[in-house]
């Protein structure tokens, strides 16, 4: 405990003395973490939109006109028996037309101009979210296509899956870039720690000669790295939060209409904690590496 208190006190003195170079290293760490935080935030929001879309993704089973009731009932029963199906709703031709009229009132004339109701009846099949995108869905849709009374099967999830893959790839690339930036930030912190190690060479020699334990000799430098890294990450979280507030204010309403999500979301608590924890971690690691010679 005394070693820890000592390490923090000495590290604090050292950071104050380092002044500008400490600020530079906090800045570098912050830039790395702002990049990471930006990616994280973008990815959290994109993921949210995707999830929303995925959740509402349904299999539409369009039926041929003039379908006998027993065939329809048999089909509905078949759908309801599928383990991956959460709910089945029948949309009659009339209901489909009514929906269209409600959704696009300015096109009402078009619909009424056609002599008979052009909309087919359909089953709207909602899948269990955890199954959406799985191989069972493909199997189900394939089986349905050939079935008696089925005109067409549409699954809007398919392109979503493709989109998800694109997003995954982008996220991976972002992670790599963030990793590289983090490594750079680590090197900066290590350089600053090495500077203070240099400045305190005489002190270290004396500590070694009085038989100070390694925790006392190296502790302050590890803590210095820890504090620099943590400060950088906290600055980054604050900057990302500001950017988020601004984005939500100026872009939020427009985006919300476009992507169908009520509001943009800030980093989750988990992401913020991971960022700050990562900052402390990278800093401490850099401090540990830089102070290897002090033993």
């Amino acid at each position, binding site marked *: 405990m*005394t*070693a820890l208190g*000592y390490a923090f006190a000495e590290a604090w*003195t050292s950071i104050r003395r380092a002044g500008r170079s400490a600020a530079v290293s906090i800045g570098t760490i912050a830039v790395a973490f702002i990049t990471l935080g930006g990616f994280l935030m973008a990815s959290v929001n994109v993921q949210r939109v995707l999830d929303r879309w995925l959740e509402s993704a349904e299999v539409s089973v369009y039926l041929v006109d003039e379908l006998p009731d027993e065939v329809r009932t048999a089909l509905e029963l078949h759908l309801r028996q599928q383990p991956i199906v959460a709910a089945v709703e029948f949309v009659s031709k009339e209901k489909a037309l009514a929906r269209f009229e409600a959704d696009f009132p300015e096109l009402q004339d078009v619909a009424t101009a056609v002599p008979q109701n052009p909309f087919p009846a359909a089953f709207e099949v909602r899948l269990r979210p955890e199954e959406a995108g799985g191989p069972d869905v493909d199997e189900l849709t394939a089986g349905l296509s050939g079935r008696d009374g089925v005109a067409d099967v549409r699954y809007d999830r398919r392109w979503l899956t493709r989109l998800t893959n694109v997003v995954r790839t982008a996220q991976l690339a972002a992670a790599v870039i963030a990793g590289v930036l983090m490594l750079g930030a680590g090197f900066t912190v290590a350089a600053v720690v090495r500077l203070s190690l240099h400045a305190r060479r*005489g*002190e270290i*020699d*004396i*500590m*070694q*000669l*009085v*038989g*100070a*334990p*390694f925790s*006392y*000799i190296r502790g302050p430098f590890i803590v210095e790295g820890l504090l620099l890294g943590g400060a950088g990450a906290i600055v980054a979280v604050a900057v990302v939060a500001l950017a988020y507030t601004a984005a939500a204010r100026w872009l939020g309403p427009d985006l919300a209409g476009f992507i169908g999500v009520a509001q943009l979301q800030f980093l989750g608590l988990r992401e913020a904690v991971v960022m700050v924890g990562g900052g402390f971690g990278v800093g401490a690691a850099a401090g540990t590496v830089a102070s290897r010679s002090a033993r």
Partner: protein
Amino acid sequence: MIETQGLGKIYGRGLYALRGLNLTIDKGEFVFLTGPSGAGKSTLLRLLLLQETPTEGEVIVAGRNLSRLSRHEVQAYRRTVGFVFQDFKLIPTKTVFENVSFALRVLGTAVEQQRRRTYQVLKWVGLQHRLNSFPEELSGGEQQRVAIARALVNEPQLVLADEPTGNLDPDLSLEIMNLFREINAGGTTVVVATHDRELIKWVGRRVVQLEHGQLAGLAEAPK
């Protein structure tokens, strides 16, 4: 207390700084190491402090073979040894009080005890009125007394001093030597390397003369 057997030290691939040194110093002795420049006095003290490792031979201090110590044992050993250098080696950014209490602090000593003990030794070297001064605000003699206070603060069994009066005028040198005599009177073994023949004569203790890294003669100085 100290025993060396065939102790040798070669720096790099060069000449022997110490060669085949067999030396015994008893517990509670006060010994001067002397000899011409380059004779190996500092080298011997560095070996005793484990700042260097011997090229050949053994150093045994208080029953411990110094070449066989683990890292932790080296730390434990150094806590039983006080050191004083010609250039004082004080930390410029710390006050007098901190420079001395530092040696206790890094050993995890309780704060209250650090304070009491630090004040005690600083009072003993006559600097209780300069506790909050920084080293650069002190004279050479005062700085050396701080260094001696630091060497003594954790009550070592052995004190090693390498030309502790090298930068000081004769009066101050005598003052410093008196401090070493007092330390020694308390039972602590003291080894002082110096060129100063006057000082050796004045203190009147055992003298170990080195020449080219070897013993030149064991002589009892006149009492």
